[in-house]
């Protein structure tokens, strides 16, 4: 089967700093992979390169067989790669419902002219968008919050809104950047269930960055470990746990994974 997302020899230099160098990663449809590494290893930079926030220095990113280099972030999103952010970036003063509806916009299917004159496809499409957004909020148990302003929501709910918003764009690949950051243990458990659930429900391919080993080891089928912009290990969770290079990268020499936990 052809991979859905293929990252080949990807490098990104900021001046003299090599944030990412010669990074490879392949996602097949339905994969749930993890990307881990110490702070500053370049994980979020990989996300930023894939989603078009930064221009790529060298290498290629192929989505469904075609290179997406040089495309604007919104084009990449519309093609089917959506993401969340390490530091939550909801639209703070918009309602929860509108946050999600914004991301439905690309598939809104009516023109600005139809919008201001309230003619043509406006009514039907607007109803579709609202219905779709409310469906998603239902999945994330946020329907009761739809009219609240996003910034007033508690942290855990904001994270869920972000995932709902990413899904509203109808992506094939979902990139989650530290979805469990700042969550308490019971919320983390719920999040793991939720990630598994949406993968089935929306037939997603997921790549996630996470620091909480419980999440990564618990739900990812394959894990890529980065350090100093490079891939230092790749494999199944149990392989990664005992990989001496990984342990060294995280903790220095002479410590085992168990003691780290």
């Amino acid at each position, binding site marked *: 089967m052809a991979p859905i997302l293929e990252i080949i020899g990807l490098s990104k230099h900021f001046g003299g700093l090599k944030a990412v160098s010669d990074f490879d990663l392949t996602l097949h449809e339905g994969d749930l992979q993890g990307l881990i590494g110490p702070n500053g290893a370049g994980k979020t930079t990989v996300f930023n390169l894939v*989603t078009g*926030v930064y221009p790529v220095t060298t290498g290629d990113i192929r989505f469904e067989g075609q290179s997406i280099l040089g495309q*604007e*972030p*919104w084009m990449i*999103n*519309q093609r089917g790669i*959506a*993401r969340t*952010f390490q530091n939550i*970036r*909801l*639209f*703070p*003063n*918009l309602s929860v419902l*509108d946050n999600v*509806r*914004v*991301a*439905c*916009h*690309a598939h*809104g299917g*009516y023109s*600005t002219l139809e*919008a*201001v*004159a*309230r*003619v043509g496809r*406006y009514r039907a*499409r*607007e*109803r579709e*968008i*609202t*219905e779709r957004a*409310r*469906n998603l909020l*239902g*999945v*994330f*148990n946020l*329907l009761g919050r739809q009219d609240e302003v996003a910034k007033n929501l508690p942290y*855990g709910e904001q994270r*869920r809104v972000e995932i709902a*918003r*990413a899904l*509203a*764009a109808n992506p094939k690949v979902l990139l989650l950047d530290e979805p469990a950051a700042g969550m308490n243990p*019971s*919320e983390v*458990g*719920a*999040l793991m*269930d*939720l990630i598994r*659930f949406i993968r089935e*429900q929306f037939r997603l391919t997921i790549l996630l960055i996470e620091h909480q080993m419980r999440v990564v080891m618990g739900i990812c089928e394959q894990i890529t470990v980065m350090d100093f912009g490079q891939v230092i290990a790749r494999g199944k969770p149990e392989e990664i746990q005992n990989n001496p290079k990984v342990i060294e990268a995280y903790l220095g020499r002479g410590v085992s994974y168990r003691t780290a936990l």
Partner: protein
Amino acid sequence: MKWKVPSWGLLVILLAAGAVLQLAIHLEVINAYWALVVTYMCIAVISSLGLGIIYGFSGQFALGHAAFMGLGAYTAALITRYMGVAPWTFAIALVGGALLAGGVAWLVGLPILRLRSDYLGIATLGFGIIVRVLFENSDKVIPVTAGARGMTGIEQPDFVFLWAFLLLLGAIIVARNLRFSSPGRALLSIREDETAANLMGVDVVRYKTIAFVLGCSYAGLAGGLYAHTFLFLHPSNFDFIKSFDPLLIVVLGGLGSITGTVVAGTAWVAVLEGLRLVLPGEVLEWRYVIYPVLLIAMMLTRPQGLFGTSEAAILRPREAEAPAAPALATEVTADGTHP
């Protein structure tokens, strides 16, 4: 096709009120001076609604609004100069002014809208000054504008107030329909977080341009009305300082609030003209001393503006058609876990 307007009843009442006011002006129950004042209220609000779309909706800090108003004013005045002020030629003039302002906004916007925040502000402000300089020198190309001496000989069409009032209602409806639509939400998302909007599939450049062109067309339309209300155009009427007026109105009303813009714009004209009435002649120069003091006091007490981002009930959409909670919702329990 059924048009969805805030409320048919209200619209009828407003139309009737406008007609009655126009009749009162026509019969000189309201004197010519106050006729100018109420017409100017409509003009100021139309122009400010335009800036509201640019700055209040999509968050682009543009400070060249007066220049676009001037472009519309001169264009419309030139058109009626050659075609007369019959209702249909006046309509052509107003549309022509709005289109020209919008067209120039499009051309200028292509390169300039990439700039962010204060840099955009100062670049548009600079554009405003360039346009004023061009107005001052315009008589070298089009002698009838008279350049720095000011353009005279603009004829007044019939029922200018009614024109301004009807166009104001139209401007409110268009802004409101935009606000509560998918393209409108795209604009708001750019205001809230441009990068996130881009990553959520919003073609940021396109929607910024739409907002800028539409907002500047509002200014051009207001300019056409201005020309045919005051019948004299001078480059200093469209100086960069004048771009602060719609900015004040939009911020005082509450950024992004159409209701706020309408109320603040009307009140702004009313206060400036009211001070003229209240103050005795010998201290009339205190008018522009009191006005900034009011402005500062207002900002210190309500920095978020009169209405914040909220809208009056009649402008809000009726979400009656929202579907019931979908079946999927039942699969998630209260704390977000799955059974």
